[in-house]
């Protein structure tokens, strides 16, 4: 073992140019893998984050439209108990459609009321207020910045709303919010829970309970836990995954294509190593021949080349990791949106990098298998006869 390893090391050292070239080849392969892998993962993370990061990921609502959850606090406790580790940011929401009337025009909106403090978790509402402040008193509301523009409403204005049942109410606009989704900015009016409950006449009840989960991709499983725990046929549990099938299939398509790229990169790396080592077998045939004449066994002679593949793989993987991280970082730093933020955030997944490096080392060693077999078949007589 030791001798085979030492000889492998010497062979690599003695043909430095060849070694550097092949290490560079592996390194570029590994770095491309890491770069593409992190790019795709970063992209997907930011995409999912943009989609559901500030939105409910699981919602519990009554089966029948227009019904209410009568004891939200008790239900929230039950839900939390279904999976305490995963479930976070629980908030009870009272909501309903209404018609907003200004002197000039009227438009349909959705009035949503929640406890501002509890809503901070999902909606980060305090950070979303771009002008004015949250309405904490009775009959105070905040409206989307697009709606305010459309209807020409200013802070301090009073607006009038009518419920589908014909009830009317007057509300004071205390601020504008920007949820960064135009349709929400145009159609949502947010208020405190008490105001919504009174105006929509839900009593102590709420329309739905919303929550987030720590692992967004486990939302469907957590939703099942919640459903089991609640064990209530009048309630329906939905999660973001079932409502975003197109996005998810897009993501898995992306993952598959990135996997394909990685497989092909790997194949080209393996072919490169195998061919360079095959040439090296010819170059080193004298040495191998005399070692065998001296009594080196065939498997040991093969081991010399397996070690070379292994060493090249290790070296290539290390250089590749450095290159790949550098590449990902440069991409995140220099490829930016007009506002200066990264197009794709810098994201390092050490597990993924470890797996890529591990595969590169294994593949390099396996690539050395073909030359190693040739070595074991080399007859010292051939070398000694032909000088």
């Amino acid at each position, binding site marked *: *073992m*030791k*001798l085979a390893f030492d*000889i492998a090391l*010497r*062979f690599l*050292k*003695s043909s430095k140019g060849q070694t550097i070239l092949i290490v560079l080849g592996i390194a570029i392969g590994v770095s491309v893998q890491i770069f593409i892998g992190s790019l795709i993962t970063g992209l997907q993370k930011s995409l999912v984050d943009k989609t559901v990061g500030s939105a409910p990921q699981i919602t519990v609502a009554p089966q029948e439209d227009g019904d209410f959850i009568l004891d939200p606090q008790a239900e929230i406790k039950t839900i939390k108990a279904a999976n305490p580790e995963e479930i976070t940011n629980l908030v009870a929401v009272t909501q309903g459609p209404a018609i907003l009337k200004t002197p000039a025009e009227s438009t349909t909106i959705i009035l949503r009321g929640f406890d501002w403090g509890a809503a901070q978790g999902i909606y980060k509402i305090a950070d979303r207020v771009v002008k004015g402040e949250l309405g904490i008193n009775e009959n105070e509301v905040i409206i989307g910045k697009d709606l305010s523009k459309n209807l020409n409403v200013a802070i301090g204005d009073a607006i009038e709303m009518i419920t589908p049942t014909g009830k009317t109410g007057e509300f004071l606009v205390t601020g504008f919010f920007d949820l960064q989704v135009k349709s929400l900015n145009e159609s949502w009016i947010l208020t405190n829970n008490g105001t919504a409950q009174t105006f929509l006449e839900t009593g102590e009840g709420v329309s739905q309970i919303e929550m987030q989960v720590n692992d967004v991709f486990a939302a469907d499983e957590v939703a099942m836990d919640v459903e089991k725990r609640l064990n209530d046929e009048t309630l329906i549990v939905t999660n973001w995954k079932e409502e975003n099938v197109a996005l998810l299939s897009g993501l898995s398509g992306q993952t598959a294509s990135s996997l394909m790229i990685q497989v092909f990169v790997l194949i080209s790396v393996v072919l490169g190593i195998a061919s360079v080592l095959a040439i090296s077998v010819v170059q080193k045939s*004298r*040495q191998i*021949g*005399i*070692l*065998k*004449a*001296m*009594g*080196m*066994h*065939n498997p*040991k002679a093969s081991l010399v080349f397996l070690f070379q593949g292994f060493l090249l793989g290790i070296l290539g993987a290390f250089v590749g990791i450095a290159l790949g991280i550098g590449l990902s970082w440069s991409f995140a730093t220099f490829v930016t949106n007009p506002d200066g933020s990264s197009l794709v955030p810098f994201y390092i997944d050490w597990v993924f990098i470890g797996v890529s490096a591990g595969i590169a080392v294994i593949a390099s060693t396996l690539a050395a298998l073909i030359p190693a077999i040739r070595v074991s078949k080399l007859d*010292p*007589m051939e*070398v*000694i*006869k032909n*000088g």
Partner: protein
Amino acid sequence: MDNFVVEVKGVSKVYGKTIKTVALHELNLGFKTGSFNAIIGESGSGKSTLLNIIGTLDRPTKGEVIINGVSTRNMSKGRLADLRNETLGFVFQFHYLLPEFTALENVLMPYRVAHGKADKESQKRAREILNLVGLEKVENNLATNMSGGQQQRTAIARALMNKPKIILADEPTGNLDSQTTDSIYQLFRKINQELGTTFVIITHDRRVAEKADRIVEILDGRVSLDIIK
């Protein structure tokens, strides 16, 4: 008959399948322990073929090779390799040193093939052998950074490393000038006398052959002359 360290019995070697070249014809030959033997004969007579068969690098078409009283006919490749490592030392016309290693490391190679690591004692021994062949000054030179004569002497030192019973040399001085040739044969003789190592040397040089204990001449794959002094 009994103290042959190596013996070939009825050895034939035929090359080729369609056009057959018979390189050796049922040869019978034995070399005594501690003897110093020269094999001569014209080019193409079968000398190298014989030596390679004795060295178990090549297998005879017919017959058997007996080394240390044991037939090698049914030995596996691994057993033959071990046998070569322990009992045989080779010197060829070309030195076949590993250019990636120094003279000392090359000399240690047969030991490391057997034991993996070179311990203190083996390193001491390798240095002693290098001393013996007069190379103590260049022991740390890479094999490529030595003269032809130094390279060949390193190869001889390497052949001696595992204290082989037999040294098989195929025109070991073929590439060297006459002065270096002389010093190398003196060295062989010295090793032969001091260590009792058996030598079988192929040479074209009649002058060299005449200094041997025994001269075997091969002609067309047969022994045509066998002079024991």
